[in-house]
């Protein structure tokens, strides 16, 4: 069915964006603007392909990718929390390191600066075709999707539970919202930020693994194509709440899939791709505008009138 196949491609486009958005969201709740999601995703994608082709094990590739991403996140944590680096500059540095490092590895270890395309590559688990056909429309859309996509959607409620129903989540939110209050209560703000970065690394790792391992099975130097930043835009648009962020990510995935379809009608895909970013700017401006209006001093009501 056409609708199912469209839905399938929406889901597929949304998965890495959703994971990137969740990665950015966790750190946003700890008051960190994480611009390094892009770099962490890239590293994960590279490691996934490299380890996968070397060991011929999808599981090993998967875990190595996630681990690599978490390690990058902890490098960021080290630089910023222990050595007081500026979060934005260090985040951009991580991105540069990821891009440069992967390019360097491509050139040095593989001699193929254009990308890494192993001839054979192990496949990760996908939902078996035909297994869910009994669910109308949605069923076929989920068939053939990778396990990582399933994990991505599970991650949404998991994040919500973590943030709102566990002590660590509460302390993390407190550390992000009001450091003074958190510290006075004995919460280690540094630890909370480090934890948020680690979880961010986990999600970014999943995103990178999904990108590389789902259908493509190869690595290209710029393969993340700004998805880390789309995810950041989705988070900012969603104000840091898991469900709204997920909705925003799905929306952007929707427009991505739509853009692909509309190519056939010669509508430039670039304008469709621009939308998340424009949305983020507009959303932030509107939010600020509301605050600005709300903070205006009230007019004095003249007593004794009629």
């Amino acid at each position, binding site marked *: 069915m056409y609708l199912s196949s469209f839905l399938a491609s929406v889901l597929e486009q949304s998965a890495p964006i959703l994971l990137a958005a969740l990665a950015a969201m966790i750190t946003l709740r700890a008051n960190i603007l994480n611009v390094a999601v892009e770099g962490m995703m890239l590293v994960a994608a590279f490691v996934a392909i490299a380890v996968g082709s070397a060991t011929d094990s999808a599981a090993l590739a998967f875990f190595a990718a996630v681990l690599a991403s978490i390690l990058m996140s902890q490098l960021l944590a080290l630089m910023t929390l222990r050595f007081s680096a500026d979060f934005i500059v260090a985040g951009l540095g991580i991105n540069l390191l990821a891009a440069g490092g992967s390019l360097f590895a491509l050139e040095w270890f593989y001699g193929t600066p254009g990308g890494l395309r192993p001839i054979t590559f192990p496949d990760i688990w996908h939902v078996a075709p035909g297994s869910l056909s009994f669910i109308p429309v949605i069923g076929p859309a989920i068939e053939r999707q990778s396990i990582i996509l399933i994990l991505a959607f599970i991650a949404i409620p998991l994040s919500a*539970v973590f943030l709102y*129903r*566990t*002590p660590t*989540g*509460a*302390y993390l*939110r*407190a550390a992000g*919202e*009001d450091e*003074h*209050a*958190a*510290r*006075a*209560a*004995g*919460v280690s703000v540094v630890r909370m930020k480090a934890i948020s970065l680690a979880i961010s690394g986990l999600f970014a790792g999943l995103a990178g693994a999904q990108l590389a391992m789902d259908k493509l099975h190869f690595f290209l130097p710029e393969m993340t194509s700004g998805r880390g930043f789309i995810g950041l835009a989705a988070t900012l648009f969603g104000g840091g709440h898991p469900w709204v962020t997920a909705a925003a990510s799905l929306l952007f995935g929707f427009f991505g899939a739509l853009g692909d379809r509309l190519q056939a009608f010669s509508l430039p895909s670039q304008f469709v791709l621009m939308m998340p970013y424009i949305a983020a700017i507009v959303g932030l401006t509107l939010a600020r505008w509301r605050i600005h209006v*709300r*903070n*205006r*001093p*009230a*007019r*004095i009501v003249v007593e004794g009138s009629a």
Partner: protein
Amino acid sequence: MTNADHILRLSGISKSFGEKVALKHVDLDVRRGEVHVICGENGAGKSTLMNILAGIHQPTAGTLILNGREVVISDPIEASRLGIGMVHQHFALVPSMSVSENVFLGRNLRKWGVFADKAAMVARTRELIARYNFRLDPEATVGTLSVGQRQRVEILKALAFNAELLILDEPTAVLTPPEVDELIGVIAGLREMGRTILFITHKLREVKAVSDRVTVIRHGESVATHETGSVSEADIARDMVGRNVFLVGRGNEQARRPFGPTVLKLSNVSMTDSAGRLLLKNISLEVRAGEILGIAGVDGNGQTELSEAIAGLREIQAGFIELGGRTITEASVPERQSAGMGFVPEDRLDRGLSKTMSVAENLAVSNYRRAGLKRGGYVDQDRLEAFAAEKIREYDIRGAVPESPVSTLSGGNMQKVVIARELYRDPDLLVVCQPTRGVDVGASEFIYARIMAAADRGRAVLLISSELSEIFALSDRIGVMYSGQLLRIIERKDADEVIVGALMNGSLEAAA
């Protein structure tokens, strides 16, 4: 009295931050089950002392004996473990979380080890609220609560984990009068339950209303401890202010030269915030040429708003401001400067200076044209340096060379930079706020001399200060701000500390 009756005993406590001495020598003993007040002027060292008890700072010297044993209060958690509960002046609450979540922040009760047991935390909080009769909803979001309610959450936090000694830092500073009465009731109730309460205030009315004993701190030293019942507000005020004698004073001299025409005039000035609360209520005042009008009052009663309204940094919602006969209500800051206004803000690092820029640039920033430092759009470097060097000499700004960053100077010398800059234009009106806050005695005297010289030259001076001694030393007339209102303006010769002190606490009757 045996030690067992003293829950807390401090001996010889001192605390320095680098070169700055916050506490010189404090002795304090607090009896179990009493309400003990620490009283003192701004900058006397009260907050530093409380922060030591809360585990936020460590004393440089001296001993703390809690329940008969010497202790080291290494951090807030340790303080809590030792049974000390601290209620900060600036609340440490997370606005988006509920009352129970805030109470249990950092100490969540767990369900199955992993999850937060919200139901249990709400139940425990409800129990606590009932026990202390606080009238709070454990599930209410803190952000929606009033200031008084939030304070009660803070107190609840302090009590929740078996605090024996409760410390309250300026608890009434942010409360409205009915909320203050409520708090006094809460404190009385807690005392009845056997808690010991230590609180800081400088509002004499409250001291008398609720405490058993009061210790006065002045300039980092504990000066006296009294049984509250046996002293008057005037006695306490006298201990707080001391016998500071400034050699150069105006108030006691006779036959001041007559004052000139009105320079600054405020007519029915009011200012609101976004919620419609009145920050300034119908303020009218006049300052004449050659006169120093001193506005006294405890910080936070509208002085900042008043100074910013006059300086042009904040809009007013009603009333007029006139300078030298011209209406400047809508005028921008540069327009007010041209009309003859100089402004020394209350926090030099916040508004008065740019820390990283040089002494010369800070001196010159609003004086380029007047000092002839501009050539076209360019700055004449030699002239700038000469200008700065001259000011450094004239104001005895120690440790300064024109190009050194102003952050290298001491507080007093930084303040001199601000004053030098503003006085350079010889403004008809000088608005000066907290001129000697954080400034050493020598520099203070220099600054006072400059302010008085300006008035002697025929300039009008509006002095806003929470230091009573300073107000008394310099002013020709004294006004008192309380809760956004200008309560009364009295001649210096008719004023004494008791009257002004009473006005500062809002008690008009006592001042009558």
